[in-house]
């Protein structure tokens, strides 16, 4: 809480540099935030194109466009890119832009590290995508890369995939260290922990989760690397290893990882709903405690992804009960959001539309999550399209809508120009319809018995898949509206006021729009009006 703020930048000019070097050597949190967000958007188009290849192949039964081998590379890379190349970088980008402004800091705590953690990403992403063009093809074993399919039976490009995961992990770890250091050390005087905006809180907890589990993922892929090249037998039954252990190590990382993807979105929605309801967030304290307990529980539920591998009864019961418990803090959050809206004075600009859709659709994803937690029923749902529907409901209208909401909410602040509301709403409605059309029928195909990760299916699933594919193309192409709207805003949007939204509270809105290059060169006064109390 020491809050002596001074400018301690290595670049001595007080404005952006010129040309390409501005972006290559920048240590400025806003420039780096912008880079993260653009990188994420480009990867979103790449990963989205892969999703469209998948949906085109699944439009009808039979093999039409791609070979099953390539289909598997598409599902694998789609998953990896969306998780590690889109949602995570976008959330870090939002944190870069917003955390310093929201806590009254001039910049991030470790600006040079910040530059490094971003610039690793394009190389890691490029390496991952380049595996598709290598001999034997890219990774084809699913984003969960279960051994021995990903070790003994993997294509040669797996080594490069492992390095890409190492780089992505290193970037995330450095990013988290920076965010934690910023939040703990650079808060303005009077910005106590329990006055921090929820977006900052969710990111603080997310950063700790990242720091705890990304190294475990790094360990898992390192063991894979050793098994593939150095004849160790971590996951090889022949040499005394155990392929099931891979799944335990992976999901020890993987379950906290899914909360890493969603918690910052919780934070975004908790900023937006009070603004447009013109009413303070309901149950601030319980929101913080709920996020903390979700983060804690995420470490003791991992084996619910592995109910079908065959665990002793006691193990199955433990993981079922622990998983069901997560419904309680998650429910608290949803109830609090609804109570924030209750008796407010609501308007429905694009950020609010995305936030409301987030609450509804994320809750639907939560319901299917609760159903999946029940072990005996999970035997029927496991690895079917029901699971695909579940996690896409929490990740697309969950995490991705959270990112969209954040971009529309803060874009006027970032560039000092207002986006086109009509275009924003068009983007929302097309995305909303597209997402539901894509993923809702997948519940039914899953219940009817369609396994996930298959390039062709029996004719009884044909109708659901056709709807799903149509929805996917609507959703995919409506993202071009977002691109158009953002570029139009940057180039020729109407000037935005400093406060932007009349119900907005928080330190970022006390700065001019656009904010100065170094956000708060002098620590601001934290008033009750601008902080949660």
């Amino acid at each position, binding site marked *: 809480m020491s809050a002596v703020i001074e400018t301690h930048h290595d670049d001595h000019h007080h404005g952006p540099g010129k040309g390409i070097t501005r972006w290559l050597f920048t240590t400025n949190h806003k420039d780096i935030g912008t880079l993260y967000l653009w990188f994420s958007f480009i990867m979103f188009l790449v990963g989205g194109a892969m999703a469209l290849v998948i949906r085109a192949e699944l439009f009808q039964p039979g093999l039409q466009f791609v070979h099953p081998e390539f289909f598997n590379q598409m599902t694998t890379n789609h998953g990896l890119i969306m998780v590690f190349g889109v949602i995570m970088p976008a959330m870090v980008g939002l944190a870069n832009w917003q955390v310093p402004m929201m806590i009254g800091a001039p910049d991030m705590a470790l600006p040079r590290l910040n530059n490094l953690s971003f610039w690793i990403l394009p190389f890691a992403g490029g390496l991952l995508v380049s595996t598709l063009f290598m001999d034997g093809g890219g990774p084809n074993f699913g984003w969960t890369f279960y051994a021995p399919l990903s070790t003994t039976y993997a294509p040669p490009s797996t080594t490069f995939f492992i390095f890409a995961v190492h780089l992505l992990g290193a970037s995330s770890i450095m990013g988290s260290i920076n965010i934690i250091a910023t939040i703990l050390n650079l808060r303005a005087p009077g910005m106590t922990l329990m006055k921090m905006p929820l977006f900052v809180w969710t990111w603080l907890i997310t950063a700790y989760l990242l720091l705890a589990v990304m190294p475990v993922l790094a360990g898992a892929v390192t063991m894979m690397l050793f098994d593939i090249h150095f004849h160790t037998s971590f996951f090889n039954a022949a040499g005394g290893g155990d392929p099931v252990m891979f799944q335990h190590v992976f999901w020890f990382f993987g379950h906290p990882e899914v909360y890493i993807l969603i918690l910052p979105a919780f934070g975004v929605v908790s900023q937006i709903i009070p603004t447009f309801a013109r009413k303070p967030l309901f149950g601030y304290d319980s929101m913080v405690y709920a996020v903390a307990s979700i983060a804690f529980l995420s470490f003791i539920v991992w084996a619910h992804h592995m109910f079908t591998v065959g665990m002793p009864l006691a193990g199955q019961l433990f993981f079922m009960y622990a998983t069901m418990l997560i419904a309680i803090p998650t429910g608290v959050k949803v109830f609090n959001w609804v109570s924030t809206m209750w008796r407010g*004075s609501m308007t429905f600009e694009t950020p609010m539309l995305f936030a409301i859709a987030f609450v509804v659709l994320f809750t639907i994803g939560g319901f299917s999550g609760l159903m999946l937690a029940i072990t005996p029923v999970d035997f029927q749902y496991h690895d079917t399209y029901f699971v695909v529907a579940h996690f896409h409901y929490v990740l697309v209208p969950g995490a991705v809508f959270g990112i969209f909401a954040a971009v529309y909410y803060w874009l006027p602040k970032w560039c000092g120009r207002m986006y086109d509301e009509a275009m924003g709403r068009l983007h929302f409605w097309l995305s909303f319809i597209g997402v539901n059309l894509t993923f809702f029928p997948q519940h039914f195909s899953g219940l009817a018995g369609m396994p996930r990760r298959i390039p062709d299916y029996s004719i009884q699933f044909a109708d659901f898949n056709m709807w799903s594919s149509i929805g996917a193309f609507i959703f995919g192409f409506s993202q071009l509206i977002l691109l158009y709207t953002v570029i139009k805003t940057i180039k020729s949007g109407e000037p935005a006021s400093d406060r932007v939204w009349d119900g907005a509270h928080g330190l970022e809105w006390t700065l001019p729009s656009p904010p100065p290059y170094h956000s708060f060169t002098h620590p601001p006064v934290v008033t009750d009006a601008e902080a949660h109390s």
Partner: protein
Amino acid sequence: MNVKAIMRATLGAALVVAAACGYADELNMRVGVTEVSESVYGLHMLILYICCGIGVIVFGAMAYSIYHHRKSRGAVAAKFHENTRLEIFWTVIPTFILVGMAIPATQVLIKMYDTGGEDMTVEVRGYQWKWQYKYLDENRNNTLSFFSSLATSQDEIHNKAIKGEHYLLEVDNPLVVPTGKKVRLLVTANDVIHSWWVPDFGVKRDAIPGILNDIWFIADEPGIYRGQCTELCGKDHGFMPVVVRVVPEDEYRDWYSAQSAAYTEREAMARQTFSPDELMTMGEQVYTKVCSTCHQANGQGLPPVFPAISGSPVATGPRDAHIAAVYNGRPGTAMQAFSAQLNAAELAAVIHYQRNALGNSVGDVTQPVDILNWAAAQ
């Protein structure tokens, strides 16, 4: 514009729900035919109804608020931002609901774990990309083992022929079991992880190399039950269905003795001599069934993972090396040791076919006895 848009969305949702009710059977989990699958279905419906109930309350409150508490209707924002009693209420009530779900779930799970008292045991082994069923009979001479692979033709898959009713859900040799008997399955795998699933039995378990899992079912209704592999296992993961035929016990006994006889006959074939034409016909059948998924129907393979047969140094070189490759496989690749799956006659035929078709013309003839001689010389 907003209200209209929301109205339209609501109307759309209502239409979807109405349409959904019309297809209710297709849209829901299958009830299945075993006691376990019926209790699983009951549990599924219980939780679904609870979720729907909570959904109606939460989304109803939201919808009410969105309609009434909007600025355009002159709503003035209230100032409240906490209510401890309410917050305790919505923490405690869900806890009770969860306990209410956990109790029946635990009961069903305990029932599923009771694998004892079985009437028969079958080992289920996952291969890339087929299943092997081994009936473990206490009499060693009476065991039965066979492979079960996809029966759908490549023409149907590649849209060159009309797709049949059971497209991708049909196999050459289904698992056959008698009605009303407790069947215990020992599930494991040869290469990578697979998962054996029959939705109508409410049974799914991963098949893991080196690890043995056990599951059981009792099917009272004769019929054909279909499922699929549900763990990504490589290229043809989508093409390894599970089919179980449940038949009355006497029919099962007849089937079993006929299979044993056929098995013995196939073994006897290994001692016969065939004409080159017979070898070609039989070889093509075996090739289509066993080899073509990787090496492709035209023999061109999918290099570099699956090498071509046409012009391959193995298929056009010394015959002993060719036999060795097919007989022993290539460890660490998808090329299996086919000695475990094919008898000497089938091995001879497919090797003859590979050497004299698919663009190759070595001109030699491979007979079952050549395979046996080669194996004996090892």
